[in-house]
């Protein structure tokens, strides 16, 4: 396999509704931003495209990926769509990585969008919940916040994670977003604000949940030769990993923890895993990505992470499944400020999904774009402020998952120039 580099990215501002742009013009805006960053790269150099969007119900346009391809002027080159719920953008990065690593393309464009404003929030929740078993789960009035809330409640029971600790994730990520002009939901909040914002599904409140958004993001991946001829700020895709778990949370086993390189099998005696408190798919994804990247201890070898925080509880769960702290310590990890900007391992310095918004098909790409700019040292150039720049960042991680941790992707990125 060939080395693959992330060379440029672009993102639109995420908003509740963008009626002035349809999915094609949104992708075009993000694409132009990315291409503007690498003027030596021409559209003719792009070998293929992977298009990422979650729901045909939101888009109400089948084969929208093909229409993006023609709008960008990239016909007759190959294009395909990938889909995997909240992991859709992460899967698109992996698919583009595979295209370049295999030699099928020297340059692959990964682009994604979601147009969630086309339906009401209530209908949007229904559409998202169709990504749960329609025989057994969806008809119960199931909506995704409820599924994550049940995971959070079990985590509270198992590990003692508290609602205030979850609220701290919201405070942190909305607060980081204040310095990100692309973000939909910048806010300076307190734990009290989060707890008082209205329950959606106990213990999750409105401010524990990410928003419905319109938006697009793109990432451009290249082989080594192309990369070093067009950019002085290359970022290597150092490791990719993915995992799965059952769609129904009810079906998940209660077995043993899968240890990461810095853990021993005996570390979690008596913990029945993953149950519904943790996410085995994330663990699998991290394990594979760390193995490829040569990471022995993620706590020491990562400078920041962009984690999937569609819900505050999901970020805390991801700290543990990705091995950034031990199982059960996710709550204190955020409480002690270790995931804050300036902490040991800043998590979601961009503002994450909570702060930036969550246009599903664009989300995983948006996370990769912000991680790229971090590693290039270009946060000031793109965001207009140095506030979110993690100083000296050399290696970062991007994580996304879909379903209730049903599909998961982890990508490790490293500064190469």
């Amino acid at each position, binding site marked *: 396999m060939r080395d693959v580099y992330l060379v440029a990215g672009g993102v639109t501002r995420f908003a509740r509704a963008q*009626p*002035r742009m349809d999915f094609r013009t949104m992708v075009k805006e993000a694409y132009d931003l990315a291409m503007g960053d690498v003027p030596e790269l021409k559209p003719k150099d792009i070998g293929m495209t992977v298009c990422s969007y979650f729901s045909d119900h939101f888009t*109400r346009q089948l084969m929208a990926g093909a229409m993006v391809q023609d709008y960008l002027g990239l016909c007759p080159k190959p294009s395909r769509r990938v889909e995997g719920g909240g992991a859709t953008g992460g899967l698109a990065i992996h698919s583009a990585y595979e295209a370049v690593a295999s030699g099928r393309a020297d340059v692959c464009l990964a682009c994604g969008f979601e147009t969630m404003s086309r339906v009401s929030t209530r209908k949007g929740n229904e559409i998202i919940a169709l990504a749960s078993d*329609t*025989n*057994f*789960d969806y*008809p*119960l*009035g*199931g*909506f995704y*916040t*409820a599924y994550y*809330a*049940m*995971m*959070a*409640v*079990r985590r509270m*029971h198992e590990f003692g994670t508290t609602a205030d600790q979850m609220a701290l994730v919201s405070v942190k990520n909305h607060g980081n977003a204040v310095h990100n002009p692309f973000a939909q939901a910048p806010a300076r909040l307190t734990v009290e604000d989060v707890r008082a914002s*209205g*329950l*959606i*599904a*106990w213990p999750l409140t409105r401010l524990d949940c990410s928003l419905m958004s319109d938006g697009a993001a793109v990432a451009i991946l290249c082989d080594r030769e192309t990369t070093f001829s067009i950019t002085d700020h290359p970022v290597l895709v150092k490791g990719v990993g993915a995992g799965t778990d*059952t769609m*129904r*949370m*009810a*079906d*998940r*086993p*209660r077995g043993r923890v899968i240890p990461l390189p810095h853990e021993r099998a005996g570390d979690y005696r008596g913990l029945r895993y993953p149950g*519904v408190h943790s996410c085995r798919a994330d663990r699998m994804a991290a394990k594979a990505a760390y193995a490829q990247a040569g990471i022995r201890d993620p706590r020491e070898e990562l400078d920041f992470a962009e984690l999937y925080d569609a819900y505050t509880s999901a970020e805390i769960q991801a700290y543990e499944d990705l091995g950034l702290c031990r199982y059960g310590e996710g709550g204190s990890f955020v409480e002690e400020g270790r995931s804050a900007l300036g902490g040991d391992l800043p998590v979601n310095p961009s503002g994450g999904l909570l702060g930036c918004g969550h246009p599903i098909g664009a989300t995983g790409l948006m996370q990769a774009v912000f991680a790229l700019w971090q590693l290039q040292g270009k946060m000031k150039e793109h965001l207009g402020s140095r506030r979110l720049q993690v100083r000296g960042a050399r290696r970062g991680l991007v994580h996304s998952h879909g379903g209730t941790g049903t599909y998961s992707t982890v990508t490790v990125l490293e500064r190469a120039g």
Partner: protein
Amino acid sequence: MKKAQPPSGIDPIIIKDHHEIDYLHSYAQDSPFFAGLSQGRLLGTECKGCGIRYATPRRHCMECGKETAWFDLPLAGRVHTWTTCYLEEPFHLVLVEFRGVDTLFLSRLVGAGEGEVKVGMRVRAQFLKKPKFRATDVYFVPEG
């Protein structure tokens, strides 16, 4: 002669488009479960090969791939986890665990107030008198 200019700077025109589909949704291999609900039975499946018992039925075993057999779940279990949803009227969702069964079952919990649901709480299955052949034909109530 001056050419007519295309209109620019106008607000986007937004129309409402209706979309409706009636799906013919077959429960297929899960059908015996829904027939069971209409008879006041809660059916799980078990693998005779590896012995795993599924509270939410799976026609084929997730471990060994063999076809499973139906069995009657106990009607009493405990709350493994729960939430209260605040959509219009608040309602509780619970994942129920059963003694001797390896996986869980998602259902609604009726008859408990806000703040009264707890992990480990004993609950019992009840069935709608007029089944609608939906997963909501069964619900749980606090035991005793």
